[in-house]
């Protein structure tokens, strides 16, 4: 690596902050406010209530996937308790933030051929990548301070709060380095994002397994992760214990991983051409197969990559989580206070996991449906719609794949999870029904995405991501943890899909699907009547 190849890195950093400042501000402000609210709300619990919640979630292997380790002494302290419950969501937020920052500054720039412009204007070969990594590093640090502030305002101790914030920033920078590597390896922005998502998914699954196979303290007063935690940066974050041992040496792990993986990314910069990936470009077909010549066939050709990239991990997650929840509560059945509560919670657990999966699948709905916007703004839609193909028929193909695909994903999860759990084949119906219920909110969200695409195409990208994040946070899983007022929780469609099929109201579920259909219809009408917008 010659130094001259880094020329103009500083300029690109400034440029990135100028263009993306609003996005970064929103991320930091969001992380700060979530920390502030979560700590405040959970601070209202009494020590005894915290203890009970910890016992209930720790006793179940399945539930341990979604919480973080906690020391026995810490179970009734808000500083530890809030991370026990929120570690999962903060890890995801820092990861998504880092993937987005790096992918936007590297691969997306390249896809838009702006990178070429920059590269020929005297910037060094490594400038783009190094600037993206430095920006990601900086924004992660600032977000860590935001987190610290949210804790300190709630009266928590300064140095512990700072270390807590930094431990998530540590995860963030490692994810950023992996996204940089993904950006170099793949052929365009969406497959770069896909690679990054799969990497983070692997971190998450390893961490979940580390927690499931962890060592539960006596009386289920918290737990420690197993050795598996050392294989995933999400586990490192959990091992820092900012308010107990404060293992500062773990930051060496984050930094080492960040540097090593980044070096890997730099290595591949030299191995490929601008605008291409390392893993791309074979010779292709000279003729389209007959199925691809039909509008729906082409839509499938364009959408199948994303669908397969989702359905395979989702199916595996179902099996993994099903296995983890299979003999739930067995250890604690005889517990004097909680025996019955465990049995109830154990029965509910797979349905809760299906709901969480459905929340994640709403991101698939967004990716699949906003493909339409991509075709319009930077794709060949202009050319396609100058043929006799009616606008609505073109749209129908993408809507079909987006809406049906989302429902199928949730059902796939429910199905593979059920395969592991159920004792008799007759029980599978109940799990599929559970899946169909949880797919309802996703269907409604899909409808909303279509409506926004029709009505406000230029703003659809930002609006849909904001809506989905809000619905997830206000929904059935996080809404109660955040102790949001009912009026806010009721705004999220997820709130209206009860976990257990026997508790669910059929009328409510049908309403979710009907509303989804109505919103989609609005989207169709709006698109039929509007200008294409480039």
């Amino acid at each position, binding site marked *: 690596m010659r130094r001259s190849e880094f020329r103009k890195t500083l300029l690109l950093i400034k440029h990135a902050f100028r263009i993306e400042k609003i996005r970064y501000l929103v991320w930091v402000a969001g992380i700060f406010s979530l920390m502030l609210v979560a700590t405040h709300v959970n601070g209202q619990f009494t020590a005894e209530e915290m203890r009970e919640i910890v016992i209930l979630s720790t006793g179940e292997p399945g539930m341990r996937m979604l919480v973080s380790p906690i020391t026995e002494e810490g179970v009734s302290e808000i500083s530890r308790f809030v991370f026990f419950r929120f570690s999962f969501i903060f890890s995801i937020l820092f990861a998504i933030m880092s993937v987005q920052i790096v992918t936007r500054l590297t691969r997306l720039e390249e896809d838009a051929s702006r990178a070429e412009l920059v590269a020929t204007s005297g910037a060094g070969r490594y400038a783009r990548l190094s600037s993206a990594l430095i920006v990601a590093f900086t924004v992660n640090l600032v977000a860590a301070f935001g987190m610290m502030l949210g804790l300190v305002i709630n009266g928590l101790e300064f140095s512990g709060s700072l270390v807590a914030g930094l431990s998530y920033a540590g995860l963030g920078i490692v994810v950023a380095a992996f996204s940089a590597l993904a950006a170099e390896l793949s052929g365009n922005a969406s497959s770069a994002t896909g690679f990054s998502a799969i990497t983070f998914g692997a971190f998450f699954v390893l961490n979940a397994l580390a927690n499931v196979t962890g060592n539960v303290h006596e009386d289920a007063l918290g737990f420690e992760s197993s050795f598996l935690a050392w294989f995933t940066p999400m586990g490192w974050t959990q091992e820092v214990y900012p308010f107990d041992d404060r293992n500062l040496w773990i930051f060496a792990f984050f930094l080492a991983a960040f540097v090593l993986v980044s070096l890997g990314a730099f290595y591949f910069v030299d191995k490929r051409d601008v605008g291409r990936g390392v893993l791309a470009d074979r010779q292709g077909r000279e003729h*389209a197969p007959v199925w691809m010549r039909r509008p729906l066939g082409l839509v499938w050709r364009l959408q199948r990559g994303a669908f397969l990239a989702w359905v395979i991990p989702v199916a595996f997650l179902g099996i993994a989580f099903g296995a983890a929840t299979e003999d739930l509560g067995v250890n604690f059945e005889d517990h004097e206070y909680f025996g019955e509560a465990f049995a109830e919670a154990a029965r509910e657990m797979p349905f809760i996991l299906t709901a969480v999966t459905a929340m994640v699948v709403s991101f698939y709905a967004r990716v699949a449906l906003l493909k339409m916007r991509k075709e319009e703004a930077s794709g060949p839609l*202009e050319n396609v719609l100058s043929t006799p193909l009616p606008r609505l028929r073109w749209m129908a193909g993408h809507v079909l794949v987006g809406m049906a695909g989302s429902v199928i994903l949730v059902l796939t999860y429910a199905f593979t999870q059920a395969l592991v759990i159920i004792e008799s084949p007759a029980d599978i119906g109940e799990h599929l029904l559970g899946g169909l219920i949880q797919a309802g909110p996703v269907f409604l969200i899909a409808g909303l995405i279509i409506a926004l695409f029709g009505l406000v195409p230029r703003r659809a990208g930002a609006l849909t991501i904001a809506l989905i994040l809000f619905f997830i946070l206000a929904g059935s899983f996080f809404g109660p943890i955040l102790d949001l007022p009912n009026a806010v929780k009721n705004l999220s469609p997820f709130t209206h899909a009860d976990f257990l099929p026997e508790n669910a109201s059929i009328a409510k579920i049908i309403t979710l699907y009907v509303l989804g259909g109505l919103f989609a219809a609005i989207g169709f009408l709006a698109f039929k009547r509007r200008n294409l917008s480039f």
Partner: protein
Amino acid sequence: MNVIEIRDLQKCYGKAQALKGLDLTVKKGEVLGLIGPNGAGKTTTVRILLGLLKKSSGTAKVFGKDAWDEAVEIHKRLSYVPDDVRLWPKLTGGEVIDFLASLRGGINEERRARYIERFEFDPSKRCQSYSKGNRQKLALIAALSADVDLIVFDEPTGGLDPLMSKVFQQCVAELKDEGKTVLMSSHILADVEKLCDRVAIISHGRIVETGTLDEMRHMKRNVVTVRTVRPLEKLHELEGVHNVQKNGEEVSFQADNEQIDAIMRFLTDHGIRSIVSAPPTLEDLFMRHYEEGYKKEEVTRHETE
């Protein structure tokens, strides 16, 4: 019969008015060139004709049908090559050609093969690896392979090298022979000059002039460069003489065609040694309209100030 009929077409984007009452007709079998500077409204006009954008007011008809309401019917009989050809990065060129052709009602393998060969195009590569010129070739092949009555080209040769531009010109000439109608927007004057029966000059959202090149030249001034025995002292006083410039012994000026006879007599009286008179190139016509457009713009700007 008019294939394209536009009357008093207006299009606003928010407050900005892109088209301010545009009139244009294209007759059957005609090759019409729509020329004008960037931002004059060429692409907007074309996109309204294709039903991709909605007009604000006025009439825009293709084959006698409303461009917005009956877009699908109209599209059965036309094909289109956009200015900026964007494709699906992961599909091969051949796959895209086949798909677009199938949407237009099926592929004519023989034509497809012929055009691929003429444009020296490799259909087995993925679209992300094509250059701008290659993407343009792909769109041209897809459009030309279809059996349609009207072809609309928006800046068709922007990315083509001179050799391929020539192939393109031959293709358009063949279309003309087959009796097809062509609308071509461009600011590459050489294409328009060679290919088009009629030219419409668009500026600031209006057609400022339209006609065959001959008609336009007829109205315009010749550029005359002359050497005479006696100095041409009173030349600038003559009617129909503009822009007199002396360059040593040589004098050049612009002459209105209506007055050419009187001007020639005047020159002969002074003893002509050599004379060159050239019709205005399209460039000359074009530049005049640009300049007038800019001037007008300035005037209105002053007025509003």
